[in-house]
């Protein structure tokens, strides 16, 4: 199963021109507890080619939302940037395969 099929929504946005923020909206508390185990700094670092010490993960228990903030791979609108609004970075997480063992927990 891919993460996309397990949660309500994944959204990526600029948080200003220099940071990128990705929000995972989980369907409920149980779902949140399962997903949060997969969202580690090591996993994010690998997927987004970002050093671990520059990654911030905010688990928001009350809302069942997981927020991930990383430096933009390229500054917004700079000549190497491919995605002005940071719109598609969430897709990398959407298409991440999650192990069955973890889903059934």
């Amino acid at each position, binding site marked *: 199963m891919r993460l996309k099929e397990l949660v309500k929504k994944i959204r990526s946005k*600029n948080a200003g021109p220099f*940071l990128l*923020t990705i929000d995972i909206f989980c369907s409920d508390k149980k779902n949140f507890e399962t997903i949060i185990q997969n969202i580690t700094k090591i996993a994010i670092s690998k997927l987004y080619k970002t050093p671990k010490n520059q990654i*911030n993960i905010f688990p928001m228990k009350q809302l069942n939302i997981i927020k991930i903030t990383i430096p933009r791979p390229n500054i917004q*609108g700079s000549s190497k940037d491919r995605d*002005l609004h940071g719109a*598609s970075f969430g897709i990398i997480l959407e298409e991440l395969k999650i192990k069955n063992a973890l889903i059934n927990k």
Partner: protein
Amino acid sequence: MDIKVLVPTGALGITYCKKALNNGLKEKPDIIVVDGGSTDSGPAYLGKGKSKYSRSSTKSEWRTLMVAREKLKIPLLIGSAGTCGTDKSVDWFFKITKELAKELNQNVKITLLKCSQSKKDVNKAFLRENLYPLSNAPKISSKKILNCTNIVGLAGVEQITEAINTKADIIICGRSTDASLIASLPIMNGVDKAVAWHAGKIGECGAFCTTNPKSGVILISFKKNCFFIKPVSNNTKVTPYTVSAHMVYENSDPFTLIEPGGRLDVKKAIYKKQKDGSVYVTGANWVQDYNYKIKLEGTHVVGYQSISMVLIRDESYVKNINKWSKQIKNKVKEIIENSLSWKKRSYEIQFRFIGKNATLGSLERKKLEPTEIGVLVIVTAKKQYECEEISKILNPLLLHHSIYKNKELPTFSFPLSPPSFKIGKKYEFCLNHVMSLQNPMDIFKLEKYSI
């Protein structure tokens, strides 16, 4: 005390529901507040000092708000006018407002809050070590600062309060933080700072904090220690979830919001559904800064650009697109070095493969073979004519370059004529810094007019 702020839309220029606006006006708000800008659409707007939205849609949406203001005799406030909030875009917006006042036969007092910064003064602050980098800020130098095309300071509650205090009917602010537009009038009337700033963040995008973001309009009612968010359009609801989840929106930290003069902490905030359908919010904390600081945004020109577009449908070329583009790049380099004698590599050619990995580049994980590839070629150089020269050298190669030795030359598809396009100046954001100030108005200016 009961202060009511009406927010008709998240941004002027993207339309809003007029019926919902009328419902909101029936609630007798004390002020109409609308945001007019953001950095989210990229550096070119600040670079040029121009608006993202069309003049006609801006004028048409502003007309409705000016009519509403005249009817209720309450102030109408716009922040970050003309997308980037430079003095030039404030003047552009002022001109639209004057045209409308004439057309609507209104006599109005207008105050402009100007936020553009002198490069020399910003450089002086840099040399005095009075500029502090924010998270992931680029490195700056005097040269970079003095080469900026535009620098703006982001106004907060202190500057907007000064503007509202002029008793103007219409207040046109340059670059301002989204939340400060909503927070100012309540704070002026004794509402707790944490409550006002919290409402500012929740209401910044209008109905984004409701179940129906498209409706645009929301009404925020303040008491000293709490606020209520009320949807004013039919078929729209607010819930503790929709309201509190907006803290996450385009914010790097969902619990903390850094603003001019301090920071908002919402870790202990409480959101409760009310019988009348509104959501009650309280419990945030405001931590006042010891040193008053203002955030700066700046853009500089890094070169000029031209683009070309060619479509590759031939299976063998789709398969070998990397080889094909590498060979073209090398050929172009050879031609440039031989025929133009440009010694330094002062240009850059990027190939983006639309249909393959143009969006995510090296982060793309899918490895499927596409049917066709749109090749977007971006040329960046120091001068526009250099971009055009390179694009013209590229063109016959994009049209006919073969990766095979003994085969007839292929021909690829150009969707447009001319096949390459001048983009003009390439702007980049180069400041993500704060400047500390003795007095909040030190680097901002007010202008008052009666029309």
